[in-house]
């Protein structure tokens, strides 16, 4: 009898200790209130999706530590889309029907987004998308998809911002002269689309040409012929559209071939680890949305960066991290202003978003070519200087002046 009593007491103690521990772990939000569920899909094996989900969790933890939203905790449920359209669609179905999420965030590849659109349309849940640059996604959504809030710029937004950027740089810095542009593009869909878009965009204003190469990401990695064509063309701006695996090997071959364009610019979705540490990276320009150097001009960027470093002890390597972090904050702010997670109220609140993001710019939603709610519409022009990505343009978030021309190889 005594033994049984002792066992019951131990169990009771253990249960209360567990409950206390659980209460501590859940922060200051009331324990009884059901959490607000945010469903998310990213490609978790890819650095963009991995860090995107990490940054979103960071934002959720920060918000919960500050008391949650409407007295409720936020809960992030992430499903891996594996960079596959069918998996991405199944992930949305699961998040909506099994997990009963209140809204959806995330996304990276346009191909996956295209696969998700029918399911998203079926449930018409609020979506804050962090990826999908292709205009085809916008066409798939249609003008009636008022529940779709797109943070990432569309491909035509990006192209236009590059054209604007180069015009502005040439005006401000008299020594920068661009007449001839050469685009080396990977021979897949991404590179071909970049070539077509760039030809349309730059073809009228500049003399433009390009040549394809097989990316190292798909078993290529020999850039000699494309660099030879570029060298023969003699461009003022040499731009390559490929993947991170191409970044350093292409520079090494350009150096070996003594190819010296006025501007050497790369536009991969991400950069290799420690690219900035390579001496070859110095003065290479790039397109992007965020860099740690923005911490110097944006308190929101610094808060995000410091929090990410403290939580994960690794540096955010792609702009998908601050973009995903922003998605959670934008959602939380809208829920707070809407006073509920009701879809109609949430759409109305999201449409009125005015969020000073870590990207160094304030995010609002305005119409794009088709959809009603487009967030960021511009990219930035950056340059690797002393191992750091410095923002060259737009000038309001610039962290350094451009180094021009690209110095001759030694």
């Amino acid at each position, binding site marked *: 009898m005594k033994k049984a009593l002792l066992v019951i007491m131990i169990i009771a103690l253990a249960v209360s200790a567990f409950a206390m521990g659980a209460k501590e772990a859940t922060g200051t939000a009331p324990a009884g209130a059901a959490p607000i569920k945010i469903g998310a899909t990213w490609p978790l*094996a*890819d650095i963009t999706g*991995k860090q995107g989900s990490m940054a979103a969790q960071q934002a959720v933890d920060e918000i919960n530590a500050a008391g949650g939203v409407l007295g409720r905790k936020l809960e992030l449920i992430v499903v891996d889309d594996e960079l596959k359209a069918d998996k991405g669609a199944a992930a949305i179905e699961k998040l909506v029907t099994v997990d009963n999420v209140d809204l959806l965030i995330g996304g990276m590849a346009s191909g996956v987004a295209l696969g998700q659109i029918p399911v998203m349309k079926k449930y018409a849940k609020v979506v804050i998308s962090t990826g999908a640059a292709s205009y085809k996604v916008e066409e798939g959504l249609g003008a009636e998809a008022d529940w779709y809030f797109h943070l990432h710029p569309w491909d035509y937004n990006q192209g236009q911002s590059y054209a604007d950027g180069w015009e502005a740089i040439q005006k401000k810095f008299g020594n920068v002269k661009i007449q001839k542009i050469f685009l080396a593009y990977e021979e897949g869909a991404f590179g071909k689309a970049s070539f077509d878009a760039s030809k349309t965009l730059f073809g009228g204003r500049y003399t433009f040409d390009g040549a394809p190469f097989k990316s190292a990401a798909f*078993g290529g*990695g020999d850039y000699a012929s494309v660099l030879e064509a570029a060298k023969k063309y003699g461009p003022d701006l040499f731009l390559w559209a490929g993947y991170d*695996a191409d970044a350093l090997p292409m520079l090494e071959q350009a150096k070996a071939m003594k190819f010296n364009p006025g501007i050497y610019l790369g536009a991969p979705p991400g950069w*290799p680890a420690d690219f900035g540490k390579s001496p070859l990276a110095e003065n290479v320009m790039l397109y992007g949305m965020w860099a740690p150097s923005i911490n110097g001009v944006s308190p929101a960027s610094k808060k995000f960066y410091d929090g990410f470093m403290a939580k994960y002890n690794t540096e955010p390597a792609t702009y998908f991290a601050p973009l995903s972090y922003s998605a959670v904050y934008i959602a939380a702010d809208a829920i707070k202003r809407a006073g509920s997670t009701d879809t109609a109220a949430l759409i109305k609140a999201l449409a009125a978003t005015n969020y000073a993001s870590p990207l160094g710019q304030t995010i609002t939603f305005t119409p794009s070519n088709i959809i009603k709610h487009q967030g960021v519409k511009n990219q930035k022009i950056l340059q690797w200087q002393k191992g750091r990505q410095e923002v060259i343009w737009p000038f309001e978030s610039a962290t350094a002046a451009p180094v021009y021309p690209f110095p001759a190889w030694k």
Partner: protein
Amino acid sequence: MANKRNAAIFAALIVAAVAGILVWRPTVIIYGLQAAGLYASIAIPMGLILGIVHIVNLAHGEFMMVAAYLTYMVCTALGIDPFVAMIPVALVTALVGFIVYKLTIRQALKAPELNQLILTFGLAISLTQLANLLFTSQTRKMSFGYVSASLSIGELSFGVYNFVFVAIAVLMVIGLRLFLTRTTAGKAALAVGQNPKGAAIVGIDVDKTYGLVFALATGMVGMMGAIFITRSSIFPAVGSPFTMKSFCLIAMAGIGNIPGILGASVLLGISENFLKAFRETRGWADIVFFVLIITVILGRSIKGKKA
């Protein structure tokens, strides 16, 4: 007599074509040979396994990827050059290859070929996913000044570093020839490759020989993985395209024909770069690859039928 004359005319035509290309567009030959060196030095170890163990190792490129990551870790931790790290890395990869052989390949040697393919394909996927878990998909690349070594002749400037792969491929062919013809283990391997049952009857330990050959080949591809990181970025999926390319080169050369892999690689490398020299045909490099394979295999079949 007629055959000899035909062969002489064919050789003269090839020499004339090469000389013509060299004068017209020297980079076709330069970059073609460099590409051939890389293709051959990765394909030769696979050819060794296929020729002697008679198994298509679909995890071939993944062994190279594992070695590349191993080299990356060793070089970044100790600050040494991949050319220094390649010896210990090759030894470790050879050991891993031997263990993999004993634990998996050996069990499937008598199984149908499809099972062997599925087994090595499974190994390839496992290694890729393991690398993904450990290193993520973010690419890594070490910078070495010598990789950009350049030679200028008149107005032409080109990289010379990639000729190192030509040297490695030639050394592999010579080294394997010496091993297979001058050493006891090599002669045993050759005998096992030609007739495993006959070799067993005369007292050769077939299983031990298979293990040794598998370890040797994985060691060689491990060494290639170490040198590969000097020119290329590494990421978990970096090896798989080279598996397919290697297999196709072996098919072109004929199974068991190690020097033939070198020849097939030269043909492929020069053909690819020849097409890349023209604006209109730059994107055809992959097509020429398959056209060559189909032509060579078809030609061999027709010749075989006639004979």
